[in-house]
């Protein structure tokens, strides 16, 4: 487990004069291969910004992110995704002019995806297989039966699950989820919990941002707590629950420890 698949090394992100991530010395933490990391902290602590920095949506002002010994500093977001990193967004994103199924199919890489293959038509053989994969991913997040729906007709929670399915179908090595249970009903939350547990068991590295600690702390094997962009605490879920700094800054004195 000492083998870190993802390393965040002294990362700082400034927006103008405001330091959203990094604190005084930059943010540093490692994620072991196959680990399940919970990333928590108050609103505005810099959790989503950290996700943006890791996934290449934003570039660090200082420091670097390393994925499997590869420095991501010069990588585009699409390159990073191509290396096996997946992420969802806090505000779910979708492709409104595609159906639900097509939204997921965009996620699967296609060997004959280029424009010339398209005109020659030699993508057809593999498209059926792709469709089945996408359907299976939709079933895993409880969206079976919605394949041909328009994205615009999905509920907020369903939209969130659609985004999970679109990344799931890519079979990522590292999967970052930003508040996956927000707006999702309890039944589906349970489904999501068992899905994440299965992924974890299968060796996928997970990093999950969540304010729903009952959900997260049962699943995660390690927790990083951010406050004002800096690392406030790091440890096993039980240590974090009892950590007086975390209690003061985030959990509140009367949380159920």
């Amino acid at each position, binding site marked *: 487990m000492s083998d870190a698949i993802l390393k965040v090394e002294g990362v700082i992100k400034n927006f103008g004069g405001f330091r959203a991530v990094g604190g005084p010395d930059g943010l540093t933490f490692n994620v072991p291969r196959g680990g399940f990391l919970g990333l928590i902290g108050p609103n505005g602590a810099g959790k989503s910004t950290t996700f943006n920095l890791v996934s290449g949506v934003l570039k660090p002002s200082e420091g670097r992110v390393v994925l499997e010994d590869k420095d991501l500093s010069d990588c585009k977001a699409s390159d990073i995704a191509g290396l096996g990193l*997946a992420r969802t967004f806090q505000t779910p*994103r979708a*492709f409104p002019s*595609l159906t639900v199924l097509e939204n997921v199919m965009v996620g699967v890489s296609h060997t004959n995806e280029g*424009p010339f*293959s*398209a*005109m020659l038509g030699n993508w057809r053989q593999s498209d059926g297989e792709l469709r089945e994969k996408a359907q299976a991913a939709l079933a895993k997040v409880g969206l079976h039966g919605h394949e041909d729906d328009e994205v615009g007709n999905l509920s907020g929670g369903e939209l969130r699950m659609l985004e999970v399915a679109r*990344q799931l179908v*890519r079979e990522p090595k590292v999967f970052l989820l930003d508040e996956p249970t927000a707006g999702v009903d309890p039944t589906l939350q349970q489904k999501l919990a068992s899905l994440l547990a299965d992924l974890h068991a299968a060796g996928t590295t997970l990093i999950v941002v969540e304010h729903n600690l009952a959900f997260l702390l049962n699943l995660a094997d390690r927790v990083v707590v951010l406050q004002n962009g800096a690392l406030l605490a790091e440890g096993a879920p039980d240590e974090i629950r009892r950590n007086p700094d975390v209690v003061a800054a985030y959990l509140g004195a009367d949380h159920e420890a």
Partner: protein
Amino acid sequence: MIQSLLLSTLMFGALFSVLSISLNLQYARGGMINFGTVAYFAAGAYAYAIFTQEPPSGLDQYAFGFDLPWWAGFLAAGVAATLFALITGWPTLRLRGEYLALTTFAFAEVLHSFLLNERRIGNGSVGLANVERPDLSFFGLDEQIGYAVAACVLMLVTAWLFNRLLASPYGRLVDATRDDETAAEAVGKDTTRTRLQVFVISAIPIGFAGALYAMITTLVSPALFTAEITFFVWIALVLGGERTILGAIIGTMALVFFQELVRMIPFESVRSAQIAASVEEVLTGVLFIIVLRWQPWEKMKRRKGA
């Protein structure tokens, strides 16, 4: 009379449909506003003329003439449009919406004034006359009919290829890139590359259409390639309902028919012909505004969907 009206509508309608089909791919599907359409058309026409004409002699001011057969000129037109699309697309595709529209427009204006002022390309404002064209009598066809058929073939091939393109996984990628680039990047899609590909692919048939246009008119000159052509194609696209290849074709055919009809009216004097020309433009504008304001196609679509 009627026959020649229908024939020229078919010929120019099909020819300009190639432009509107390409614009449909670029704008309606790719989400890129290109207000420099005429530049790729001009690049194709000039490339064709230059590659097929004889080397300069006598009073010619142009510097190049390669005297190649028509098909080599036709291919050169495609290459020229590709190159111009790469040159204009590479630095500008980072821009969005109206910024892209303005820059592409500016690029087209630069090309226009370059053709006008750099006489070594195409004799400046005089242009290149007597452009070579293939001998269609070989097929036993009337010239006009032959070129109408050629335009239809180019239109159909373009429509067919673009239709295949959009019906494939690549079509999904194009739609996804337009809808949400960040989300497309998050599943590993290089949206910059996709946008450039779409931009260039849709410029190629425009270049071929330019070559065909040069064959039909046997003249290329800067006066033939003004921003009016760009706006004409945009209006045709909007008239046709914007989002489908068939719509683009119908819109273009209708607009060309309307213009050819006005042109058919015999006039007593130059003055009245001039007035008619302005009236035609005003009417085109009014038609455009009506379509934009009441969106009849959207309503039809909704009725069909309901």
